[in-house]
């Protein structure tokens, strides 16, 4: 027994703080940090700061006045809800597509792989126009739903469809590499231990993919909140019913209400930011034991 006395491993993930600068054969922390700060300031921080400044020109009462408007509230609810639903749907079907592309070798796999990126390349307005033609009451797809009393185009479901389209590549592209690196032995181990396919998928495979799926969800969600081009063609844009936040901002701008537009933009930004941080925290908790070792 003495031969194998268990030697304790120092397992203190939190105590081991990474050093501020790690020695590397390719030095350049200074220039890299300088460049990053300058670049981010120019591209992201300065425009955002200007936006906040513009919004700050109003007092709290008038900011509240802009936001407490039922039309604005409806637009926010629609935008975030439709984006979340679209991202969730993308999460599931993105996983299926990634699964197909990684796990199986079939004729035309590369073509399918290339098709996934197409929503990135296509001008979103074109997508919006063709989707609304397809989903309209007399369109190919819409005509199947019309007798059931379900409107897709010019109604909230149409917005979700457009947002699914623009968000499709995110989940596929985040899950794909993780699935590629996933050891098939883990599934085999579960099988030898008596787990059936469903249990193996739920308890072994899915937990390993969950952090990547959540990243894909966050990206698709963020992308959907900002989406404008495709949605305005399919939404119908009825105030209070199918009007999204980005459209509301454009309308304010057209009315030369720059401050109002800035207030709505800042509000949208802050909500998005809060939600993304929450997703990030959740993701860390999920990936806790996967990152190390």
């Amino acid at each position, binding site marked *: 027994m003495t031969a194998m006395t268990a030697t304790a491993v120092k397992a203190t993930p939190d105590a081991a703080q990474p050093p501020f600068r790690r020695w590397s054969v390719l030095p350049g922390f200074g220039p890299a940090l300088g460049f990053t700060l300058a670049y981010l300031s120019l591209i992201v921080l300065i425009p955002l700061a200007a936006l906040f400044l513009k919004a700050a020109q109003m007092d709290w009462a008038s900011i509240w006045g802009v936001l407490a408007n039922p039309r604005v509230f409806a637009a926010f609810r629609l935008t975030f809800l439709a984006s979340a639903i679209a991202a969730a749907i993308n999460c599931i079907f993105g996983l299926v597509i990634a699964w197909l592309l990684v796990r199986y070798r079939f004729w035309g796999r590369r073509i399918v792989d290339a098709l996934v990126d197409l929503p990135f390349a296509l001008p979103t307005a074109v997508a919006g126009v063709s989707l609304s033609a397809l989903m309209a009451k007399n369109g190919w797809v819409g005509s199947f739903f019309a007798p059931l009393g379900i409107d897709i185009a010019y109604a909230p479901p149409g917005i979700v469809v457009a947002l699914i389209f623009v968000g499709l590549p995110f989940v596929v592209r985040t899950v794909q590499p993780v699935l590629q690196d996933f050891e098939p032995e883990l599934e*085999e181990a*579960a099988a030898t231990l008596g787990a059936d396919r469903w249990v193996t998928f739920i308890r072994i495979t899915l937990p390993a993919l969950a952090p990547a799926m959540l990243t894909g969800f966050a990206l698709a969600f963020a992308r959907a909140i900002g989406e404008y081009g495709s949605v305005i063609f399919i939404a119908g844009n009825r105030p209070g019913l199918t009007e999204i936040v980005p459209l509301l901002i454009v309308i304010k701008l057209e009315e030369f209400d720059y401050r109002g537009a800035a207030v709505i933009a800042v509000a949208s930004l802050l909500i998005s930011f809060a939600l993304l941080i929450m997703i990030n925290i959740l993701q860390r908790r999920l990936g806790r034991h996967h990152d190390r070792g």
Partner: protein
Amino acid sequence: MTIEVRNVCKSFGAYQALDNVSLTVADGELMALLGPSGSGKTTLLRIIAGLDQPDSGEVLIHGQDLSKQAVRDRRVGFVFQHYSLFKNMSVFENVAFGLRVRPRQQRPSDAEIKRRVDELLGLVQLDPFAARYPAQLSGGQRQRVALARALAIEPKVLLLDEPFGALDARVRKELRRWVRKLHKEINVTSVFVTHDQEEALELADRIAIMNLGEIEQVATPSEAYDRPATQFVSEFLGFANRLTCHVENGIARFGDFSLPTEFDNYAGDAVAYVRPHEIGLNRANGHDIARATIDSIVALGPTARVDLAYGEQRLEVLVDRERLTELGLVVGDPCAITITRAHVFRGT
């Protein structure tokens, strides 16, 4: 429980991984599948487990044909080369997995699961680590968790794929002794794959030596070493001097030597294998049968390795260091040699 592999063939495309392989593992035996990479040993192990399907042939465990049975119903404990622990579960949950996924009627109660897992963790001496996650363990500890996890389902047989391959030398030696002891304790029929002959010789009751998809010999370690069945086994197991010779009238001729063979009616080329300790070394005295020159001497520990030049042939000889000092031989000296034993195989 016994394992019987009957006439199993398996090919991957044009590559024949297993060519009509048969093997019987006795109840409670610890069998090693030993061979170089690409010899088909892992494929054979995976087929026994049901992780791969044979093209033809059958696998019987305890007399029962398992060919049509799904992996999850076979109750075969499998330990993977790279542990393959579930990273999102604690050590405890890893070991408990096989019990928790049982159908509801057969599933033990939580208290029973806890008792069994604690018992297994005690067996692999990891009780204090139950709450740890795999990433927080050392290689040897992970391997023992993998072993406990496989044992949790009370497997009919235990299969281990290169169980010590990913560990450093010191841990490997410790774990090897420990596995030997554990096997004596639990006495479950086990097969392990290795390319390390030292490991196979030390651990296994019997070894099956594989090459190019076939089993060359199944024997106890000492039998395989002393009486290799084929040229491949002679070369693969330990070191042997390879002498090309010619056989006539049942006698193999190599230089000045006449080596007895078992071939009565064979005349032609042959290869003789002589272990380094099967060559005798003496001072040259003028009446010698065969004379060689000493090329180099490596004296380490109780035995010395002496490299000889015998004509064109190089010979490696092991002698006691005391004996070498007695003889007073040094590099460059001529010496007399004898061959005490040789294994002769037909062909070249």
